Protein backbone atom coordinates (compact mmCIF):
# COMPACT_ATOMS: atom_id res chain seq x y z
CA UNK A 1 0.00 0.00 0.00
CA UNK A 2 2.85 2.32 0.88
CA UNK A 3 4.54 1.58 -2.41
CA UNK A 4 1.28 2.15 -4.29
CA UNK A 5 1.23 5.59 -2.70
CA UNK A 6 4.81 6.20 -3.91
CA UNK A 7 3.79 5.32 -7.46
CA UNK A 8 0.69 7.49 -7.23
CA UNK A 9 2.47 10.52 -5.77
CA UNK A 10 5.29 10.20 -8.32
CA UNK A 11 2.81 9.98 -11.14
CA UNK A 12 0.76 12.92 -9.87
CA UNK A 13 3.89 15.07 -9.54
CA UNK A 14 5.01 14.05 -13.00
CA UNK A 15 1.73 15.17 -14.60
CA UNK A 16 0.75 17.97 -12.28
CA UNK A 17 0.25 20.56 -15.03
CA UNK A 18 -2.18 18.44 -16.98
CA UNK A 19 -3.97 17.05 -13.95
CA UNK A 20 -4.30 20.54 -12.48
CA UNK A 21 -6.40 21.57 -15.45
CA UNK A 22 -8.66 18.55 -14.96
CA UNK A 23 -8.87 19.33 -11.24
CA UNK A 24 -9.76 22.94 -12.07
CA UNK A 25 -12.57 21.76 -14.34
CA UNK A 26 -13.84 19.56 -11.54
CA UNK A 27 -13.47 22.46 -9.10
CA UNK A 28 -15.83 24.57 -11.24
CA UNK A 29 -18.52 21.90 -11.19
CA UNK A 30 -17.95 21.15 -7.53
CA UNK A 31 -18.17 24.86 -6.71
CA UNK A 32 -21.71 24.91 -8.08
CA UNK A 33 -22.60 21.74 -6.19
CA UNK A 34 -21.12 23.23 -3.02
CA UNK A 35 -22.93 26.50 -3.66
CA UNK A 36 -26.16 24.61 -4.26
CA UNK A 37 -25.77 22.53 -1.11
CA UNK A 38 -24.83 25.51 1.02
CA UNK A 39 -27.61 27.63 -0.41
CA UNK A 40 -30.34 25.05 -0.67
CA UNK A 41 -30.96 25.04 3.04
CA UNK A 42 -31.34 28.78 3.06
CA UNK A 43 -32.40 29.49 -0.48
CA UNK A 44 -35.93 28.20 0.07
CA UNK A 45 -36.36 30.71 2.83
CA UNK A 46 -34.55 33.40 0.88
CA UNK A 47 -36.61 33.00 -2.25
CA UNK A 48 -39.71 32.65 -0.14
CA UNK A 49 -39.00 35.96 1.52
CA UNK A 50 -38.22 37.51 -1.85
CA UNK A 51 -41.52 36.26 -3.17
CA UNK A 52 -43.24 37.76 -0.16
CA UNK A 53 -42.69 41.05 -1.99
CA UNK A 54 -45.52 39.88 -4.23
CA UNK A 55 -48.02 39.80 -1.42
CA UNK A 56 -49.84 37.68 1.05
CA UNK A 57 -50.74 34.05 0.66
CA UNK A 58 -53.28 33.70 3.47
CA UNK A 59 -56.41 35.66 4.30
CA UNK A 60 -58.20 35.76 7.66
CA UNK A 61 -61.71 37.11 7.74
CA UNK A 62 -64.65 37.05 10.11
CA UNK A 63 -67.11 34.21 9.90
CA UNK A 64 -70.13 36.11 8.53
CA UNK A 65 -69.23 38.05 5.51
CA UNK A 66 -71.59 40.48 3.90
CA UNK A 67 -69.51 42.55 1.56
CA UNK A 68 -67.39 41.29 -1.24
CA UNK A 69 -63.92 42.67 -1.36
CA UNK A 70 -61.38 42.33 -4.05
CA UNK A 71 -61.09 42.81 -7.73
CA UNK A 72 -59.91 40.92 -10.72
CA UNK A 73 -57.86 37.90 -9.80
CA UNK A 74 -57.53 38.95 -6.21
CA UNK A 75 -60.90 37.93 -4.93
CA UNK A 76 -60.62 37.93 -1.18
CA UNK A 77 -64.16 36.73 -0.75
CA UNK A 78 -66.49 38.87 1.27
CA UNK A 79 -66.06 40.63 4.55
CA UNK A 80 -68.64 41.95 6.87
CA UNK A 81 -68.90 45.52 7.97
CA UNK A 82 -70.53 44.30 11.11
CA UNK A 83 -68.63 41.11 11.85
CA UNK A 84 -65.01 41.94 12.66
CA UNK A 85 -61.89 40.50 14.25
CA UNK A 86 -60.38 41.97 17.38
CA UNK A 87 -57.01 43.49 16.57
CA UNK A 88 -55.66 42.30 19.91
CA UNK A 89 -56.29 38.69 18.86
CA UNK A 90 -53.80 39.12 16.06
CA UNK A 91 -50.84 39.29 18.42
CA UNK A 92 -50.73 35.49 18.40
CA UNK A 93 -50.53 35.40 14.57
CA UNK A 94 -46.98 36.79 14.69
CA UNK A 95 -45.83 33.83 16.72
CA UNK A 96 -47.02 31.21 14.24
CA UNK A 97 -44.09 29.42 12.65
CA UNK A 98 -43.67 30.52 9.05
CA UNK A 99 -45.56 33.80 9.32
CA UNK A 100 -43.38 36.70 8.17
CA UNK A 101 -45.96 39.42 8.61
CA UNK A 102 -49.59 40.46 8.15
CA UNK A 103 -51.57 43.50 7.12
CA UNK A 104 -54.91 44.17 8.84
CA UNK A 105 -57.61 45.93 6.84
CA UNK A 106 -60.90 47.53 7.85
CA UNK A 107 -63.22 48.43 5.01
CA UNK A 108 -66.10 50.87 5.02
CA UNK A 109 -68.42 51.97 2.27
CA UNK A 110 -68.43 55.72 2.38
CA UNK A 111 -69.58 58.66 0.32
CA UNK A 112 -66.73 60.51 -1.22
CA UNK A 113 -67.54 63.72 -3.06
CA UNK A 114 -71.12 62.49 -3.14
CA UNK A 115 -70.32 59.16 -4.71
CA UNK A 116 -70.15 55.78 -3.06
CA UNK A 117 -66.61 54.58 -2.49
CA UNK A 118 -64.71 52.10 -0.44
CA UNK A 119 -62.55 53.50 2.33
CA UNK A 120 -59.90 51.01 3.36
CA UNK A 121 -58.18 51.35 6.69
CA UNK A 122 -54.80 49.69 6.40
CA UNK A 123 -51.96 49.25 8.85
CA UNK A 124 -49.79 51.39 6.61
CA UNK A 125 -46.54 50.47 8.25
CA UNK A 126 -47.20 46.75 7.79
CA UNK A 127 -48.41 47.33 4.25
CA UNK A 128 -45.27 49.28 3.33
CA UNK A 129 -43.10 46.47 4.73
CA UNK A 130 -44.92 43.56 3.12
CA UNK A 131 -46.32 45.07 -0.08
CA UNK A 132 -43.13 46.41 -1.56
CA UNK A 133 -44.76 46.93 -4.93
CA UNK A 134 -47.23 49.57 -3.66
CA UNK A 135 -46.28 52.80 -5.33
CA UNK A 136 -47.15 56.14 -3.85
CA UNK A 137 -46.91 59.36 -5.80
CA UNK A 138 -46.68 62.08 -3.17
CA UNK A 139 -46.16 60.80 0.35
CA UNK A 140 -47.61 58.35 2.81
CA UNK A 141 -50.23 59.66 5.32
CA UNK A 142 -48.86 60.88 8.63
CA UNK A 143 -51.77 62.73 10.26
CA UNK A 144 -55.21 61.31 11.06
CA UNK A 145 -57.07 63.18 8.29
CA UNK A 146 -54.60 62.26 5.56
CA UNK A 147 -55.39 59.62 2.99
CA UNK A 148 -54.02 57.96 -0.12
CA UNK A 149 -56.27 57.67 -3.10
CA UNK A 150 -56.13 54.84 -5.57
CA UNK A 151 -55.25 55.94 -9.10
CA UNK A 152 -58.56 54.84 -10.59
CA UNK A 153 -60.56 56.28 -7.67
CA UNK A 154 -58.72 59.61 -8.13
CA UNK A 155 -59.86 59.81 -11.72
CA UNK A 156 -63.42 58.66 -10.97
CA UNK A 157 -64.03 61.00 -8.05
CA UNK A 158 -63.11 64.21 -9.79
CA UNK A 159 -64.59 64.25 -13.27
CA UNK A 160 -65.05 60.85 -14.75
CA UNK A 161 -62.63 58.71 -16.63
CA UNK A 162 -61.27 61.37 -18.98
CA UNK A 163 -61.14 64.47 -16.79
CA UNK A 164 -58.30 65.68 -14.65
CA UNK A 165 -57.58 63.49 -11.66
CA UNK A 166 -57.64 64.35 -8.05
CA UNK A 167 -54.14 65.28 -7.06
CA UNK A 168 -52.12 65.17 -3.87
CA UNK A 169 -52.76 68.24 -1.77
CA UNK A 170 -56.49 68.39 -2.57
CA UNK A 171 -59.19 67.59 -0.03
CA UNK A 172 -62.03 65.12 -0.36
CA UNK A 173 -65.32 65.22 1.52
CA UNK A 174 -65.98 61.81 3.02
CA UNK A 175 -69.26 60.85 4.66
CA UNK A 176 -70.01 57.77 6.71
CA UNK A 177 -73.44 57.50 8.28
CA UNK A 178 -74.05 60.83 9.92
CA UNK A 179 -70.43 61.78 10.05
CA UNK A 180 -68.62 63.84 7.53
CA UNK A 181 -64.93 64.65 7.35
CA UNK A 182 -62.67 66.49 5.00
CA UNK A 183 -59.70 64.34 4.27
CA UNK A 184 -56.54 65.54 2.61
CA UNK A 185 -55.13 63.45 -0.22
CA UNK A 186 -51.34 63.24 0.31
CA UNK A 187 -50.50 60.58 -2.22
CA UNK A 188 -51.73 58.69 -5.26
CA UNK A 189 -51.62 54.95 -4.69
CA UNK A 190 -51.03 52.40 -7.40
CA UNK A 191 -51.00 48.71 -6.45
CA UNK A 192 -52.43 47.00 -9.49
CA UNK A 193 -55.07 45.57 -7.15
CA UNK A 194 -58.33 46.55 -5.49
CA UNK A 195 -56.69 49.51 -3.68
CA UNK A 196 -56.50 51.41 -6.98
CA UNK A 197 -60.28 51.94 -6.71
CA UNK A 198 -60.28 52.82 -3.05
CA UNK A 199 -59.47 55.53 -0.58
CA UNK A 200 -56.78 54.24 1.71
CA UNK A 201 -56.23 55.63 5.20
CA UNK A 202 -54.29 54.48 8.21
CA UNK A 203 -56.16 51.77 10.12
CA UNK A 204 -56.84 53.84 13.33
CA UNK A 205 -58.36 56.64 11.20
CA UNK A 206 -60.95 54.27 9.75
CA UNK A 207 -61.51 52.55 13.08
CA UNK A 208 -62.39 55.84 14.75
CA UNK A 209 -64.35 57.16 11.73
CA UNK A 210 -66.52 54.02 11.65
CA UNK A 211 -66.71 53.68 15.44
CA UNK A 212 -65.03 50.28 15.43
CA UNK A 213 -61.99 50.87 17.61
CA UNK A 214 -59.61 47.89 17.79
CA UNK A 215 -61.52 46.01 15.09
CA UNK A 216 -60.37 44.80 11.70
CA UNK A 217 -62.31 43.25 8.85
CA UNK A 218 -59.64 41.33 6.99
CA UNK A 219 -56.11 40.24 7.66
CA UNK A 220 -53.75 39.42 4.85
CA UNK A 221 -50.98 37.14 6.09
CA UNK A 222 -47.60 36.43 4.48
CA UNK A 223 -46.20 33.01 5.32
CA UNK A 224 -43.09 31.23 4.06
CA UNK A 225 -43.76 27.93 2.42
CA UNK A 226 -40.21 26.62 2.30
CA UNK A 227 -40.18 25.00 5.73
CA UNK A 228 -43.79 23.91 6.16
CA UNK A 229 -46.78 23.63 3.90
CA UNK A 230 -49.03 26.65 3.72
CA UNK A 231 -51.97 24.50 4.74
CA UNK A 232 -50.26 23.71 8.03
CA UNK A 233 -49.81 27.41 8.74
CA UNK A 234 -53.46 27.95 7.84
CA UNK A 235 -54.61 25.17 10.19
CA UNK A 236 -52.58 26.59 13.05
CA UNK A 237 -54.00 30.07 12.44
CA UNK A 238 -57.50 28.64 12.31
CA UNK A 239 -56.97 26.98 15.69
CA UNK A 240 -55.68 30.24 17.16
CA UNK A 241 -58.57 32.25 15.74
CA UNK A 242 -61.61 29.98 15.89
CA UNK A 243 -64.12 32.74 15.10
CA UNK A 244 -62.51 33.48 11.79
CA UNK A 245 -62.12 31.83 8.47
CA UNK A 246 -58.54 31.26 7.33
CA UNK A 247 -58.01 30.72 3.66
CA UNK A 248 -54.94 30.10 1.57
CA UNK A 249 -54.58 32.08 -1.59
CA UNK A 250 -53.84 28.92 -3.48
CA UNK A 251 -52.83 30.80 -6.55
CA UNK A 252 -49.96 32.39 -4.72
CA UNK A 253 -48.91 29.28 -2.91
CA UNK A 254 -48.81 27.36 -6.12
CA UNK A 255 -46.92 29.99 -8.03
CA UNK A 256 -44.44 30.28 -5.20
CA UNK A 257 -43.85 26.56 -5.02
CA UNK A 258 -43.39 26.48 -8.78
CA UNK A 259 -40.87 29.31 -8.75
CA UNK A 260 -38.96 27.74 -5.86
CA UNK A 261 -38.79 24.43 -7.64
CA UNK A 262 -37.72 26.15 -10.82
CA UNK A 263 -34.93 27.97 -9.02
CA UNK A 264 -33.73 24.68 -7.53
CA UNK A 265 -34.06 22.93 -10.87
CA UNK A 266 -32.14 25.71 -12.61
CA UNK A 267 -29.24 25.62 -10.16
CA UNK A 268 -29.27 21.82 -10.24
CA UNK A 269 -29.27 21.77 -14.04
CA UNK A 270 -26.43 24.25 -14.32
CA UNK A 271 -24.45 22.25 -11.73
CA UNK A 272 -25.13 19.04 -13.64
CA UNK A 273 -24.05 20.60 -16.94
CA UNK A 274 -20.87 22.08 -15.49
CA UNK A 275 -20.12 18.77 -13.78
CA UNK A 276 -20.65 17.00 -17.08
CA UNK A 277 -18.20 19.40 -18.71
CA UNK A 278 -15.81 18.69 -15.84
CA UNK A 279 -16.27 14.96 -16.30
CA UNK A 280 -15.53 15.30 -20.02
CA UNK A 281 -12.38 17.27 -19.24
CA UNK A 282 -11.28 14.62 -16.73
CA UNK A 283 -12.08 11.84 -19.19
CA UNK A 284 -10.22 13.69 -21.97
CA UNK A 285 -7.22 14.37 -19.77
CA UNK A 286 -7.03 10.80 -18.52
CA UNK A 287 -7.47 9.53 -22.03
CA UNK A 288 -4.56 11.64 -23.22
CA UNK A 289 -2.52 10.45 -20.26
CA UNK A 290 -3.30 6.83 -21.07
CA UNK A 291 -2.28 7.36 -24.70
CA UNK A 292 0.93 9.12 -23.70
CA UNK A 293 1.77 6.54 -21.07
CA UNK A 294 0.87 3.47 -23.04
CA UNK A 295 4.52 2.36 -23.00
CA UNK A 296 4.47 2.61 -19.21
CA UNK A 297 1.19 0.70 -19.03
CA UNK A 298 2.56 -1.85 -21.48
CA UNK A 299 5.62 -2.21 -19.26
CA UNK A 300 3.48 -2.73 -16.17
CA UNK A 301 1.57 -5.43 -17.96
CA UNK A 302 4.79 -6.97 -19.28
CA UNK A 303 6.03 -7.10 -15.70
CA UNK A 304 2.92 -9.15 -14.95
CA UNK A 305 0.76 -6.47 -13.32
CA UNK A 306 -2.77 -7.75 -12.85
CA UNK A 307 -5.35 -5.67 -14.73
CA UNK A 308 -6.96 -4.56 -11.47
CA UNK A 309 -3.63 -3.16 -10.25
CA UNK A 310 -3.20 -1.09 -13.43
CA UNK A 311 -6.83 0.00 -13.25
CA UNK A 312 -6.41 0.82 -9.57
CA UNK A 313 -3.44 3.10 -10.26
CA UNK A 314 -5.30 5.07 -12.91
CA UNK A 315 -8.54 5.25 -10.95
CA UNK A 316 -6.55 6.48 -7.96
CA UNK A 317 -5.21 9.26 -10.16
CA UNK A 318 -8.73 10.09 -11.30
CA UNK A 319 -9.98 10.11 -7.71
CA UNK A 320 -7.11 12.37 -6.67
CA UNK A 321 -8.25 14.83 -9.31
CA UNK A 322 -11.80 14.52 -7.97
CA UNK A 323 -10.69 14.99 -4.37
CA UNK A 324 -8.56 18.05 -5.08
CA UNK A 325 -11.17 19.53 -7.43
CA UNK A 326 -13.93 18.77 -4.93
CA UNK A 327 -12.03 20.39 -2.08
CA UNK A 328 -11.17 23.55 -4.02
CA UNK A 329 -14.68 23.59 -5.44
CA UNK A 330 -16.19 23.25 -1.99
CA UNK A 331 -14.35 26.32 -0.72
CA UNK A 332 -15.14 28.31 -3.87
CA UNK A 333 -18.80 27.23 -3.68
CA UNK A 334 -19.01 28.24 -0.05
CA UNK A 335 -17.59 31.67 -0.93
CA UNK A 336 -20.10 31.86 -3.80
CA UNK A 337 -22.99 30.95 -1.50
CA UNK A 338 -21.92 33.56 1.05
CA UNK A 339 -21.59 36.18 -1.69
CA UNK A 340 -25.00 35.34 -3.18
CA UNK A 341 -26.50 35.33 0.30
CA UNK A 342 -25.17 38.80 0.98
CA UNK A 343 -25.67 40.44 -2.41
CA UNK A 344 -28.95 38.90 -3.48
CA UNK A 345 -30.78 38.04 -0.30
CA UNK A 346 -28.95 40.23 2.23
CA UNK A 347 -28.57 37.26 4.50
CA UNK A 348 -25.70 35.44 6.14
CA UNK A 349 -25.22 31.89 4.86
CA UNK A 350 -23.91 29.37 7.34
CA UNK A 351 -22.04 26.38 5.83
CA UNK A 352 -24.30 23.34 5.50
CA UNK A 353 -23.11 20.34 7.53
CA UNK A 354 -23.25 18.05 4.52
CA UNK A 355 -21.71 20.66 2.19
CA UNK A 356 -18.17 19.27 2.30
CA UNK A 357 -18.96 15.54 2.31
CA UNK A 358 -21.67 16.07 -0.30
CA UNK A 359 -19.40 18.05 -2.64
CA UNK A 360 -16.52 15.60 -2.23
CA UNK A 361 -18.79 12.65 -2.82
CA UNK A 362 -20.18 14.17 -6.02
CA UNK A 363 -16.66 15.12 -7.18
CA UNK A 364 -15.32 11.63 -6.53
CA UNK A 365 -18.30 9.90 -8.13
CA UNK A 366 -18.06 12.06 -11.27
CA UNK A 367 -14.31 11.52 -11.70
CA UNK A 368 -14.72 7.82 -11.05
CA UNK A 369 -17.30 7.57 -13.84
CA UNK A 370 -15.17 9.84 -16.06
CA UNK A 371 -12.16 7.62 -15.38
CA UNK A 372 -13.85 4.38 -16.39
CA UNK A 373 -13.47 4.79 -20.14
CA UNK A 374 -9.77 5.76 -20.08
CA UNK A 375 -9.09 2.96 -17.60
CA UNK A 376 -10.78 0.45 -19.87
CA UNK A 377 -8.58 1.74 -22.64
CA UNK A 378 -5.52 1.27 -20.41
CA UNK A 379 -6.58 -2.29 -19.65
CA UNK A 380 -6.86 -3.13 -23.33
CA UNK A 381 -3.30 -2.03 -24.13
CA UNK A 382 -1.26 -4.79 -25.75
CA UNK A 383 2.13 -4.85 -24.00
CA UNK A 384 3.99 -6.49 -26.88
CA UNK A 385 2.88 -3.83 -29.37
CA UNK A 386 3.33 -0.82 -27.12
CA UNK A 387 6.81 -1.90 -26.03
CA UNK A 388 7.77 -2.09 -29.70
CA UNK A 389 6.69 1.53 -29.88
CA UNK A 390 3.58 0.96 -32.00
Amino acid sequence: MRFAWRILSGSLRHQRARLSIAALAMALGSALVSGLLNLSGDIGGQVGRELRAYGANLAIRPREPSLRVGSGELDFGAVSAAATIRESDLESVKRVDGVVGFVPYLYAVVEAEGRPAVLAGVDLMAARALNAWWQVEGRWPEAEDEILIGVRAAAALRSGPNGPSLEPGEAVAVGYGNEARRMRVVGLLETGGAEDDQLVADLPTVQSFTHQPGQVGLVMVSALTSDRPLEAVARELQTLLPDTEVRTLAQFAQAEATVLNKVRLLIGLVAALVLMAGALTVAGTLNTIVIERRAEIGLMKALGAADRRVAGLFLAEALSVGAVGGMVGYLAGLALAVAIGQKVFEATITPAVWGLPGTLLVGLAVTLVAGLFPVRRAMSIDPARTLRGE
Partner: protein
Amino acid sequence: MTETIVRAVKLSRFYGEVRALEGVDLEVARGEWVSVMGPSGSGKTTLLNILGGLDRPTSGQLHVDGTDVMALPSKELARFRRETVGLVFQQFHLVPYLTALENVMLAQYFHSMADEAEARAALEAVGLGERLHHLPAQLSGGEQQRVCIARALINQPRLILADEPTGNLDAANEEIVLDIFRQLHAQGHTLVVVTHDARVGRLADRLITLEHGRVVRAESNGHDPRQRLAVSMPVPEPETALP
Protein backbone atom coordinates in the same frame (compact mmCIF):
# COMPACT_ATOMS: atom_id res chain seq x y z
CA MET B 1 20.81 -35.16 -18.51
CA THR B 2 19.94 -31.45 -18.80
CA GLU B 3 16.44 -30.33 -18.03
CA THR B 4 14.51 -28.56 -20.76
CA ILE B 5 12.93 -25.31 -19.59
CA VAL B 6 11.55 -24.09 -22.93
CA ARG B 7 9.96 -26.44 -25.40
CA ALA B 8 8.40 -24.80 -28.44
CA VAL B 9 6.93 -26.91 -31.23
CA LYS B 10 5.96 -25.47 -34.63
CA LEU B 11 5.33 -21.98 -33.29
CA SER B 12 3.71 -19.71 -35.84
CA ARG B 13 2.53 -16.13 -35.52
CA PHE B 14 0.64 -14.50 -38.34
CA TYR B 15 -0.50 -10.88 -38.47
CA GLY B 16 -3.07 -11.08 -41.24
CA GLU B 17 -1.05 -11.91 -44.35
CA VAL B 18 2.28 -11.31 -42.62
CA ARG B 19 3.97 -14.48 -41.38
CA ALA B 20 6.14 -13.16 -38.56
CA LEU B 21 6.98 -16.63 -37.32
CA GLU B 22 6.41 -19.90 -39.10
CA GLY B 23 6.89 -23.40 -37.71
CA VAL B 24 9.67 -22.61 -35.26
CA ASP B 25 10.88 -25.46 -33.04
CA LEU B 26 13.04 -24.53 -30.09
CA GLU B 27 14.30 -26.20 -26.97
CA VAL B 28 16.27 -24.40 -24.30
CA ALA B 29 17.95 -26.26 -21.47
CA ARG B 30 17.94 -24.91 -17.93
CA GLY B 31 21.04 -22.78 -17.43
CA GLU B 32 21.60 -22.43 -21.16
CA TRP B 33 22.32 -19.14 -22.95
CA VAL B 34 20.70 -19.05 -26.36
CA SER B 35 21.15 -16.12 -28.69
CA VAL B 36 18.71 -15.40 -31.47
CA MET B 37 20.01 -13.49 -34.45
CA GLY B 38 18.66 -12.51 -37.80
CA PRO B 39 17.88 -9.48 -39.94
CA SER B 40 15.17 -6.97 -39.03
CA GLY B 41 11.71 -8.43 -39.49
CA SER B 42 12.95 -12.00 -39.22
CA GLY B 43 10.69 -12.68 -36.21
CA LYS B 44 13.24 -12.48 -33.37
CA THR B 45 11.21 -10.14 -31.16
CA THR B 46 7.99 -11.98 -32.00
CA LEU B 47 9.59 -15.20 -30.79
CA LEU B 48 10.82 -13.51 -27.62
CA ASN B 49 7.38 -11.98 -26.94
CA ILE B 50 5.74 -15.37 -27.31
CA LEU B 51 8.30 -17.04 -25.00
CA GLY B 52 7.64 -14.27 -22.44
CA GLY B 53 3.87 -14.56 -22.56
CA LEU B 54 3.49 -11.08 -24.06
CA ASP B 55 1.99 -12.43 -27.24
CA ARG B 56 0.22 -15.63 -28.22
CA PRO B 57 1.22 -17.73 -31.20
CA THR B 58 -1.31 -18.34 -33.94
CA SER B 59 -0.50 -22.04 -33.74
CA GLY B 60 1.99 -24.46 -32.24
CA GLN B 61 2.80 -25.56 -28.72
CA LEU B 62 4.77 -23.86 -26.01
CA HIS B 63 5.80 -25.15 -22.62
CA VAL B 64 7.89 -23.04 -20.30
CA ASP B 65 9.07 -24.49 -17.01
CA GLY B 66 6.42 -27.17 -17.32
CA THR B 67 3.60 -24.72 -17.98
CA ASP B 68 1.49 -25.01 -21.12
CA VAL B 69 1.61 -21.29 -21.90
CA MET B 70 -0.94 -21.44 -24.71
CA ALA B 71 -3.56 -22.87 -22.39
CA LEU B 72 -3.28 -20.01 -19.89
CA PRO B 73 -6.15 -17.54 -19.68
CA SER B 74 -4.98 -13.91 -19.76
CA LYS B 75 -5.07 -13.54 -15.97
CA GLU B 76 -2.85 -16.58 -15.56
CA LEU B 77 -0.64 -15.37 -18.39
CA ALA B 78 0.02 -12.18 -16.36
CA ARG B 79 0.95 -14.38 -13.39
CA PHE B 80 3.26 -16.40 -15.69
CA ARG B 81 4.99 -13.18 -16.75
CA ARG B 82 5.57 -11.94 -13.23
CA GLU B 83 6.63 -15.29 -11.79
CA THR B 84 8.48 -17.08 -14.55
CA VAL B 85 10.13 -14.56 -16.84
CA GLY B 86 12.39 -11.55 -16.47
CA LEU B 87 12.45 -9.11 -19.36
CA VAL B 88 15.34 -6.90 -20.46
CA PHE B 89 14.52 -4.35 -23.14
CA GLN B 90 16.61 -2.48 -25.66
CA GLN B 91 14.79 0.75 -24.72
CA PHE B 92 15.07 -0.04 -20.98
CA HIS B 93 11.44 1.04 -20.41
CA LEU B 94 11.94 2.57 -17.00
CA VAL B 95 9.09 4.56 -15.45
CA PRO B 96 10.35 8.15 -15.74
CA TYR B 97 8.96 9.46 -12.44
CA LEU B 98 10.27 6.60 -10.31
CA THR B 99 13.83 6.38 -9.01
CA ALA B 100 16.14 3.49 -9.92
CA LEU B 101 15.23 1.83 -6.64
CA GLU B 102 11.50 2.34 -7.17
CA ASN B 103 11.68 1.00 -10.72
CA VAL B 104 13.05 -2.26 -9.33
CA MET B 105 10.49 -2.26 -6.53
CA LEU B 106 7.74 -1.85 -9.14
CA ALA B 107 8.37 -5.40 -10.36
CA GLN B 108 8.25 -6.65 -6.76
CA TYR B 109 5.03 -4.72 -6.17
CA PHE B 110 3.32 -6.40 -9.13
CA HIS B 111 4.77 -9.77 -8.10
CA SER B 112 3.91 -9.77 -4.40
CA MET B 113 5.11 -6.90 -2.27
CA ALA B 114 7.83 -4.27 -2.55
CA ASP B 115 10.93 -4.94 -0.45
CA GLU B 116 13.29 -1.98 -0.48
CA ALA B 117 16.28 -3.83 1.05
CA GLU B 118 16.09 -6.56 -1.56
CA ALA B 119 15.76 -4.05 -4.38
CA ARG B 120 18.73 -2.10 -3.05
CA ALA B 121 20.83 -5.31 -2.98
CA ALA B 122 19.85 -6.06 -6.58
CA LEU B 123 20.99 -2.61 -7.71
CA GLU B 124 24.20 -2.91 -5.72
CA ALA B 125 24.85 -6.24 -7.45
CA VAL B 126 24.79 -4.49 -10.83
CA GLY B 127 27.04 -1.72 -9.54
CA LEU B 128 24.39 0.94 -8.97
CA GLY B 129 24.60 1.20 -5.18
CA GLU B 130 25.38 4.91 -5.52
CA ARG B 131 22.57 5.67 -7.96
CA LEU B 132 19.60 4.26 -6.07
CA HIS B 133 17.65 7.51 -5.81
CA HIS B 134 18.33 8.85 -9.28
CA LEU B 135 15.54 9.20 -11.81
CA PRO B 136 16.05 7.47 -15.18
CA ALA B 137 16.71 10.82 -16.84
CA GLN B 138 19.65 11.30 -14.44
CA LEU B 139 21.20 7.95 -15.40
CA SER B 140 23.38 7.06 -18.42
CA GLY B 141 22.12 4.50 -20.94
CA GLY B 142 24.29 1.80 -19.44
CA GLU B 143 23.03 2.58 -15.96
CA GLN B 144 19.44 2.50 -17.14
CA GLN B 145 20.04 -0.88 -18.73
CA ARG B 146 21.50 -2.16 -15.46
CA VAL B 147 18.38 -0.94 -13.61
CA CYS B 148 16.34 -2.79 -16.21
CA ILE B 149 18.39 -5.95 -15.59
CA ALA B 150 18.06 -5.63 -11.81
CA ARG B 151 14.32 -5.25 -12.29
CA ALA B 152 14.19 -8.33 -14.54
CA LEU B 153 16.00 -10.40 -11.91
CA ILE B 154 14.36 -9.16 -8.73
CA ASN B 155 11.62 -11.79 -8.70
CA GLN B 156 14.06 -14.64 -9.42
CA PRO B 157 12.65 -15.62 -12.81
CA ARG B 158 13.23 -19.08 -14.31
CA LEU B 159 13.86 -17.54 -17.72
CA ILE B 160 15.55 -14.25 -18.63
CA LEU B 161 14.56 -12.82 -22.00
CA ALA B 162 16.57 -9.94 -23.40
CA ASP B 163 15.70 -8.04 -26.56
CA GLU B 164 18.79 -6.29 -27.98
CA PRO B 165 20.09 -5.52 -24.47
CA THR B 166 23.21 -3.77 -25.81
CA GLY B 167 21.56 -2.22 -28.84
CA ASN B 168 21.45 1.28 -27.35
CA LEU B 169 24.76 1.23 -25.51
CA ASP B 170 28.26 2.49 -26.23
CA ALA B 171 31.19 0.02 -26.20
CA ALA B 172 32.08 0.59 -22.54
CA ASN B 173 28.52 0.13 -21.29
CA GLU B 174 28.02 -2.82 -23.62
CA GLU B 175 30.96 -4.50 -21.95
CA ILE B 176 29.53 -3.87 -18.47
CA VAL B 177 26.16 -5.29 -19.45
CA LEU B 178 27.64 -8.31 -21.18
CA ASP B 179 29.74 -8.96 -18.12
CA ILE B 180 26.57 -9.07 -16.03
CA PHE B 181 25.09 -11.51 -18.53
CA ARG B 182 28.19 -13.68 -18.31
CA GLN B 183 27.85 -13.70 -14.51
CA LEU B 184 24.18 -14.57 -14.71
CA HIS B 185 24.97 -17.39 -17.07
CA ALA B 186 27.75 -18.61 -14.82
CA GLN B 187 25.30 -18.58 -11.89
CA GLY B 188 23.02 -20.91 -13.81
CA HIS B 189 20.39 -18.53 -15.11
CA THR B 190 18.70 -19.43 -18.37
CA LEU B 191 19.01 -16.66 -20.97
CA VAL B 192 17.45 -16.11 -24.35
CA VAL B 193 19.01 -13.02 -25.90
CA VAL B 194 17.92 -11.45 -29.17
CA THR B 195 20.77 -9.53 -30.75
CA HIS B 196 22.17 -8.04 -33.91
CA ASP B 197 25.66 -8.13 -32.53
CA ALA B 198 27.68 -11.17 -33.62
CA ARG B 199 29.95 -10.75 -30.60
CA VAL B 200 26.98 -11.08 -28.25
CA GLY B 201 25.81 -14.02 -30.31
CA ARG B 202 29.12 -15.78 -29.86
CA LEU B 203 28.95 -15.50 -26.07
CA ALA B 204 25.95 -17.79 -26.04
CA ASP B 205 26.06 -21.55 -25.79
CA ARG B 206 23.93 -21.79 -28.86
CA LEU B 207 23.10 -19.42 -31.67
CA ILE B 208 19.88 -19.59 -33.63
CA THR B 209 19.41 -17.60 -36.79
CA LEU B 210 15.96 -16.63 -38.04
CA GLU B 211 15.04 -15.46 -41.49
CA HIS B 212 11.50 -14.69 -42.66
CA GLY B 213 10.13 -16.23 -39.50
CA ARG B 214 11.92 -19.54 -39.89
CA VAL B 215 14.97 -21.02 -38.20
CA VAL B 216 17.60 -21.18 -40.92
CA ARG B 217 20.58 -22.09 -38.77
CA ALA B 218 21.19 -23.48 -35.29
CA GLU B 219 24.78 -23.73 -34.20
CA SER B 220 26.49 -24.60 -30.97
CA ASN B 221 29.36 -22.35 -29.87
CA GLY B 222 31.11 -25.34 -28.52
CA HIS B 223 30.83 -24.68 -24.83
CA ASP B 224 28.53 -26.90 -22.86
CA PRO B 225 26.95 -24.78 -20.14
CA ARG B 226 27.07 -27.54 -17.54
CA GLN B 227 30.71 -28.16 -18.17
CA ARG B 228 31.59 -24.52 -18.00
CA LEU B 229 29.77 -24.08 -14.73
CA ALA B 230 31.53 -27.11 -13.36
CA VAL B 231 34.93 -25.62 -13.97
CA SER B 232 34.12 -22.04 -13.06
CA MET B 233 32.24 -22.30 -9.78
CA PRO B 234 29.88 -24.49 -7.80
CA VAL B 235 26.43 -24.52 -9.38
CA PRO B 236 24.24 -22.19 -7.36
CA GLU B 237 20.46 -22.30 -7.28
CA PRO B 238 19.23 -19.43 -9.46
CA GLU B 239 16.93 -18.39 -6.61
CA THR B 240 19.76 -17.85 -4.17
CA ALA B 241 22.29 -16.36 -6.52
CA LEU B 242 22.85 -12.63 -6.75
CA PRO B 243 21.69 -11.23 -9.99
